[in-house]
């Protein structure tokens, strides 16, 4: 590594900014809930700061680890992921304390841990590795794709069974975008897409919880005190923010009107307190992250780096997009967090690890002689 092999500073700053905004917003939005549940308004803040520091540390560590190492861990990671996802489904192990009776996390001694957050990242490694290995056979469905697709499909089904349709949706889109970028034939993509949609449809109509969410999305009157209420409150939050917002800390919706104000719906509180301007700034930061991420990916020394970078960027971006779509009532409520900003240890930790890897990729852009940069397509980033 020579002196020029520095991680992308803009990307780094953007991430740190987002994490910083996250700390502020988690505190602002959780005051009332913390006061109510734990009698101390800084309960969530303290924990979030701790996790953010831990996450940033993890990012810094990941930034220094050569990303090629992950390639070797991908297979093992996938196995562990599938194991953990199955564990969550077991009634005793899965954390059943959730208000909605859903089990998405594991009680690991002293921390609750959401495997699906890890799975997203591991899937990126796995797909990147598979697509790198099978670069030559990518046009051949049976040889090149089927083993990968089977593993992915299994984990997707396990996630969907939790049920966590939001993550399943993000993972699905992530897989397709990675496949698309990796060069899978359109016809194969279409077929798989069709199958996935069929599966999703079956899922939606068979699981009452999912059906309710979709139906209440289509008609908010249907479930006015459940998901419909939540989304209505979210819109009230955003809508009452206006252009410049009601001012930091002045949100009224966080006073227990909006459920989950510091996790899934932190964006609504952000929109209320900082207004359209604040919201667009945050979205622009995400766009910046995506741009710098893709730039790093395209400048990566090898195909694995390119696919990893694209995948991680897509993961963050899709997570963000689905979360914002949920709070703006563009898609049914999913339970996805807003990357970097929402309160939630697993998601913050794995997203920051992902960023660390991305930063590492950005650092390696000139390392290989056969740099992708020299052979890249017409798109100049």
């Amino acid at each position, binding site marked *: 590594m020579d002196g020029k092999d520095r991680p992308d500073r803009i990307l780094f700053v953007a991430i740190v900014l987002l994490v910083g905004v996250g700390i502020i917003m988690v505190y602002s939005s959780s005051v*009332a809930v913390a006061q*109510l549940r734990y009698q101390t308004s800084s309960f969530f803040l303290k924990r979030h700061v701790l996790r953010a520091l831990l996450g940033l540390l993890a990012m810094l560590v990941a930034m220094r680890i050569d990303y090629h190492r992950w390639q070797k861990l991908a297979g093992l990671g996938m196995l562990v992921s599938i194991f953990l996802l199955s564990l969550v489904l077991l009634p005793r192990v899965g954390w059943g304390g959730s208000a909605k009776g859903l089990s998405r996390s594991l009680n690991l001694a002293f921390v609750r841990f959401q495997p699906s957050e890890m799975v997203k990242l591991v899937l990126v490694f796995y797909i990147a590795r598979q697509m790198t290995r099978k670069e030559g056979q990518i046009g051949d469905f049976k040889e090149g794709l089927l083993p990968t697709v089977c593993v992915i499909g299994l984990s997707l089904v396990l996630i969907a069974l939790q049920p966590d349709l939001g993550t399943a949706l993000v993972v699905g889109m992530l897989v397709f975008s990675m496949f698309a970028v990796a060069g899978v034939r359109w016809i194969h993509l279409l077929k798989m897409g069709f199958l996935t949609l069929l599966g999703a449809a079956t899922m939606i109509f068979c699981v009452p919880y999912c059906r309710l969410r979709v139906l209440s999305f289509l008609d908010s009157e249907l479930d006015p005190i459940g998901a419909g209420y939540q989304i209505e409150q979210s819109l009230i939050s955003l809508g009452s923010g*206006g252009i410049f917002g009601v001012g930091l800390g002045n949100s009224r919706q966080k*006073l227990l009107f909006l459920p989950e104000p510091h996790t899934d719906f932190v964006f609504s509180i952000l929109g209320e307190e900082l207004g359209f301007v604040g919201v667009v700034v945050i*979205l622009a930061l995400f766009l910046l992250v995506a741009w710098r991420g893709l730039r790093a990916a395209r400048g990566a020394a090898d195909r694995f780096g390119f696919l990893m970078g694209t995948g991680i960027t897509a993961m963050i971006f899709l997570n963000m997009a689905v979360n914002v779509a949920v709070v703006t009532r563009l898609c049914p409520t999913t339970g996805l967090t807003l990357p970097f900003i929402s309160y939630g240890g697993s998601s913050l930790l794995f997203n920051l690890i992902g960023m660390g890897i991305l930063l590492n990729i950005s650092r390696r852009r000139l390392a290989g002689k056969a740099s992708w940069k020299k052979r890249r397509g017409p798109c100049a980033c």
Partner: protein
Amino acid sequence: MNSNQGRRTLLVIALGFCVWSSLVGRLFFIQILHNREYCRKSKVQHRCELVLNARRGNIYDRDGTKLVFNLPVKSYYAVPQEIENPQRLGDMFGKFLNRPSQSIIRNFYKKGSFVWLTRKMGPVESELIESWSIPGVYALGEMERFYPGRSMGCQIIGFTDVDNSGLEGLELQFDEQLCGEDGWAVVQMDACGRKIPLAEYPREEPCDGHSLVLTIQATYQAIAEQELERGIQDTRARAGCVILMDPVTGEILAMANEPRYDLNHPGRVLPEWRRNRAITDMFEPGSTFKIVAAAAALQEETQKPEDIIYCEEGQIEVCGKIIHDVEEFGWLTFQRVIEKSSNVGVIKVARKLGEKIFFDYARAFGFGNLTGIQLPGEAKGLLAHPKTWSGMSLASMAIGHEVAVTPLQLVCAYASLANGGTLMKPLIVRYIVDGRGNVVRNFSPSPVRRVISPETAAVLRFFLAKVVESGTGKMARMKGLTVAGKTGTAYKLKENGSGFSSNKFVASFCGFFPAESPRLVGLVILDEPRSPHSGGRAAAPIFRRIAERILYLPKGPCADLCLMTSEPGDTSQMVVVPSLSGLDSSAAVHQLQQRGLVAELEGDGLRVYHQQPQTGLLVARGETVLVHLGDQRARGSEPSEIPHVVGLTMREAIRQLRQKELAVRVSGSGLVVRQTPKAGSSIGEGIVCHLECAPSGGGQSLMAVASSCYQGVSKP
């Protein structure tokens, strides 16, 4: 391959950018385009505005006596979620409020976190309730309107509802000014309904209501009400009203209605009792309306005061109907027509005027129009336009039928005679003042229009003085003061509208004093008095009693009137010598002692036949009154002496001299300053007393105009 990869990346980027843009677009749609809608929704669900009640203004009389003010009271409410034992709470309050406990407990199970238990408890009740210390019961400080005068001026003042907004009278009319502006404090409410106080939240301090200063004089009002009540008892009338007004300014000094009710408990009375009859009730005024024809005739010079009118021996035919007089009169002067209240004479006067002019004058006096008093619910009265009149109308109207007037209109019309011809807008609220006593709004006296000339007014005052002196209004006569006025006795229309009732009357007396320069106009109206039923005998005595009591008051708008009956000096220590004539010695002594005078008895008779100083004279308290006792027989046989009349008003002097059957000749007007022959000289045949008079107060020169008329008085 690689260019393919590049294209694919580009596609993914494009898709991502599309997604991003649509998110921004969606946020623009929600946050900017629909901002107001969501703001409203947001406000509805978590703004809880606590009302900070403004203190309602007080109402004062013209001297600053509080007629209405606020008392701090406590209201109790329950928060059902916090009640531990609803049954106990229900029982406690049920017993306290004398209500079945179930009716209280039931409310606890309704939706909401706020249930009124009882409102506006005084300190004693509050202490009791607080001694129970029931969890979930809270007190809220409130203000309650308190009317210390209870029923005094109830129809004028009106009352408020439990939330202190005006429902009747001045409380209603000036509600906006009285109530002030409530302040508010925004309290944040969370989804659980708890209030979260936040320092930076807006807060608007309440702006206390303004207070009203009335033109009403509380003592006058009380006197008017007491005397009216007594008069109603005496005559067994159904209802009645009295208005006292300052004719110069149009200020109403008292407005009494009977029956009354306690303003502190307004819910307990019939709505009918709450009506302010003085402005809402219309009645056919009868003879009191005759001044319209008289004023018009004098002003238009169709009649001169000394003109004589043939009264057709008591009946006149109008359109086939015969209108009678009470007595059969032959030839009467115009002044005597009014004095005797001859219907025939007035009808003839009105006919000479013509419909148009008569109507114009009736309008000019304010009949058929709102007076514009600052009270709610004023009636306009009925005054038909000549176009719709029948052949009977002019004659009927001239004697006060076929028109309907409110008591206030009538009093205003008389006030315009009293003040020299200007119709004044009646005033009841003089000032609106803020909490620190600064005048926010000043309602100054405002003339509506000049109706008649001062000269005409002076002549009419003389006419009306004659009514009281020797006509139908004799019962309103007072010692030491000339009263002018007119009586009215109108048959009431039958309930079904078919003609007049034969035994139901409205008796009225409208008058003013002193006649020379009136300071007070008063109207007494009795609705359906049984006996006596005539204005002269039922209403006029009430007027007199009110006036007498008012004149004895040391304070008030008419306090300085005493000056006019004697030399200037300290009047607060002055008393009027009562009439002792005919009383036995003990009664006479009692009468004098009551007024703080010392009696010195002379002679050995049973009854008083002479006194020194004279009746009606104003003397200092503690003065000795010489009382001559003798028997009736002796009085007649003793040679009479010319009484002492210096210092009396001209009218009183004339009255006293005429009692002794003396001829009087007057020069000047006002108070008697010299008399010849001297007092105490014996009365002989053919003696003519010369009285020299001089004005003692302002405005008396008006009387000089009418002095030519007075010359006639001197002829026995």
